[in-house]
């Protein structure tokens, strides 16, 4: 992992991009710096107004009692103590945990299997066709997907019709209404979980594996299964890590699926997740301070998760140079 044109290890270049930029001469004909800064100011300004100010405001309001439209009152850690004893919030965490494990396993494993299958196709045309077929559904908005699934689960939906056609009427039930099935019905949205982006990311990782490595493995007598577990899996850990972080963030923050499918996280609280509970507290119960506290907890969790992952789940590429050279 040494840059052959430099004495410095490659990672040092990667870690000090600003230094190299500063030294670089501006190409002739480039616009004046003032214009660049002015143009940069606009998106940064929007970012500041619409992202940072609300975030800081939410941070403050997590420690207040704030009915939307009225004055907020400082209550210190009261919201957090209440959350720790709130059975609904605890139930939402439990639901999130169950949903999260299922979704993580499905979203990370199935796309890898699909990517492997595409990678092993001999014909480049077929590989392209498969990739294109997986990408096409991505143009369907997520909301539409959930609406379709809602219909699939309905009394006149495909699932009911299919089971009836197969003579399995006894299996028919109110998938989203029954407490025993509601959460799993939500989790199964997206079946068979071969998400285009995830497959493409894995596929890109597989395609980047040096042919030397693959040939060496073959020469060493590794079978197909051995190659997958001993060569492919370790070399796509970088992609796995990226998908893991993206999926966890999506699971923790997302509630649109539950909102569309069961509207309020019901029956009872069977499909309620913290994101939806935050939304309900903020805009339905008008307890914005409490909602901010939930949001802050979610932020802290994601921050800890990402930092921990970065700290302990390092892949070879990011190891210090002396260890990898």
């Amino acid at each position, binding site marked *: 992992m040494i840059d052959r044109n430099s004495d410095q290890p490659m990672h040092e270049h990667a870690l000090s991009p600003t230094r190299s930029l500063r030294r670089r001469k501006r190409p002739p004909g480039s616009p004046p710096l003032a214009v660049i800064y002015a143009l940069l100011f606009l998106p940064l300004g929007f970012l500041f107004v619409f992202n940072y100010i609300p975030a800081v405001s939410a941070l403050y309001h997590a420690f207040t009692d704030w009915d939307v439209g009225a004055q907020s009152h400082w209550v210190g850690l009261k919201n957090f103590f209440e959350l720790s004893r709130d059975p609904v919030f605890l139930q939402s965490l439990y639901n999130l945990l169950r949903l999260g494990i299922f979704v993580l396993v499905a979203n990370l494993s199935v796309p890898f299997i699909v990517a492997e299958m595409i990678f092993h196709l001999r014909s480049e045309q077929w590989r392209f066709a498969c990739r294109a077929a997986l990408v096409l559904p991505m143009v369907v908005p997520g909301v539409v997907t959930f609406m379709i699934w809602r219909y699939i689960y309905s009394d006149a939906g495909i699932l009911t019709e299919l089971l009836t056609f197969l003579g399995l009427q006894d299996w028919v039930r109110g998938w989203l209404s029954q407490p025993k099935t509601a959460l799993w019905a939500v989790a199964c949205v997206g079946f068979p979980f071969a998400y285009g982006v995830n497959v493409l990311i894995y596929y890109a990782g597989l395609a980047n594996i040096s042919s030397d490595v693959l040939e060496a493995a073959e020469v060493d007598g590794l079978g197909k299964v051995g190659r997958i577990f001993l060569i492919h899996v370790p070399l796509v850990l970088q992609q796995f890590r990226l998908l893991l972080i993206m999926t966890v963030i999506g699971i923790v923050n997302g509630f649109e699926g539950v909102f569309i499918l069961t509207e309020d996280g019901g029956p*009872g609280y069977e499909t309620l997740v913290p994101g939806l509970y935050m939304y309900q507290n903020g805009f339905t119960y008008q307890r914005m301070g409490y909602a901010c506290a939930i949001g802050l907890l979610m932020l802290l969790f994601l921050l800890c998760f990402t930092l921990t992952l970065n700290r302990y789940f390092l892949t070879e590429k990011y190891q210090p140079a002396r260890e990898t050279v």
Partner: protein
Amino acid sequence: MLTRLPIILLISNLILSGCGESGKSENSKPAPGSAPGSTIRPIKVDLNVYTPGTIPSGIGKPVEQADHLAHEWEELHPGKKILYQQVVSTGGGEGEWLKTQLIGGIAPEIIHQNAEIAWQDVDKGWYIPLDEYMEKPNPYIPGNQRWIESFKNQDLVNAKKAPDGKLYCISIDIVETGLYYNKDMLRSLGVDSMPRTWTEMETQFKKIREQGVTPMTTAIMGLGSDWGQDILFEMIYHDILPDMDLVPSSADSVGYLGHYLEPREAGYLFTKGFFTRRDPRWREMNRILYEWRQHWPMELKNSDTARLFLTGRIPILWDSSFLIRRLATDPYLNFEWGVAYIPTLTTETCRYASGTPATVIGGAAIQLHITNSARINNNLEDCIDFLMYLSTPQAVERLASEALIFIPNIKGAEMSPELKPFDEIFQRRYCAIKWLESMSGQYKKQWRRMLDLYLNDGMSLDEFLKVLEDNFRAWVEEHRNEPGWDFAGMDPVWQEHKDRLQKEIEQSL
């Protein structure tokens, strides 16, 4: 220079667009008669299903009468402009989007909102009281002395007064529910007529289910269970309601509300043991509701229950008059249909049944409020004037006839013949309480959630009653010290009725 040209153009464009009027559209061009170059701030109006471009019940041409009415009003008021804007409806039904607009003072000046939801926020000054205007004449109705007198059912309008005693909306039309039934399908299932009693209904429904058909479905999202408990409540408590009504309804709405229980009355009665596990009628109400639910579709979250009825899968649909437009105009409908109402509960089914006909649960349909935006934009008087224009018999008749979903509530406005069955149903008494509308915020949600869970076998009747009791207790504790609740004021009436009422609770012990 050529390389800089795109940048210069981009910056110029940004500056110019920044200087221009935001959101300028055809609708915001100067009105006829206005001074050249003057900018008109339009009055933004949401009329729900009457908003131009809306297709009520998802069938037929988009409605446009409101647009014509706006143009007519603009011609009468040179320099004024109406801009229709549909309020975004969110799934929770609490108007979350609208609340954010009201907080920012940028909501449409005139909006439709269920009064009970608006009541939760009237103390924040988001809505304008209309009481003083109701006493003024509507200049667009010849001979009218007081605006309120132009309404056909004035008690219904006054029933929408908030707990603070003020009226924040006008109700220009009426919605009612009914049982739509597929005559052909029922006949093929061996049912010749709609049931008149609950027992008859049970027998018929069992017969239909034996043939592998779900007998009945209800309108969107389990609303049937809300409606069901309100209707069952009245039929089961009917005999003791006069005693339970500790605070008589005000004179201006008693004709509509009758022995309606206000939230504070329900709260007070709860402290005396009503609506708890000790209350045998309460238990019966929830037992019957559960049994009734067994005849409904499995998937109560199915939002397209009307489809099950329209495609001939389910013979009976409990829905509002909203569906009339579809049934009356759908060229593909291939069955004969009729409209009936919920059968009467008799002692054959429940020992507490009064045997009186089921009450109605509908009422005001489009409830037009004026928001704080009118005050902020200094056009409150114009908003009032436009509302008066909209509430003339001619205007309401045009709106209602075109939409074909609601019964006009303005004297002199004719109703479409298709809506006659609902007008007949509406002549019944109003229910004694709208349970979920009486509850506030999370208590209402909790009740609905637990009802949903109970009706879907997620908990037993005893567990459900226990959860309801806890929810009720928390709700009462939160509100009992509010000035409007005045428990002490109800004590003397309770003492008068105590002997008769306590007997009801004690007999179950």
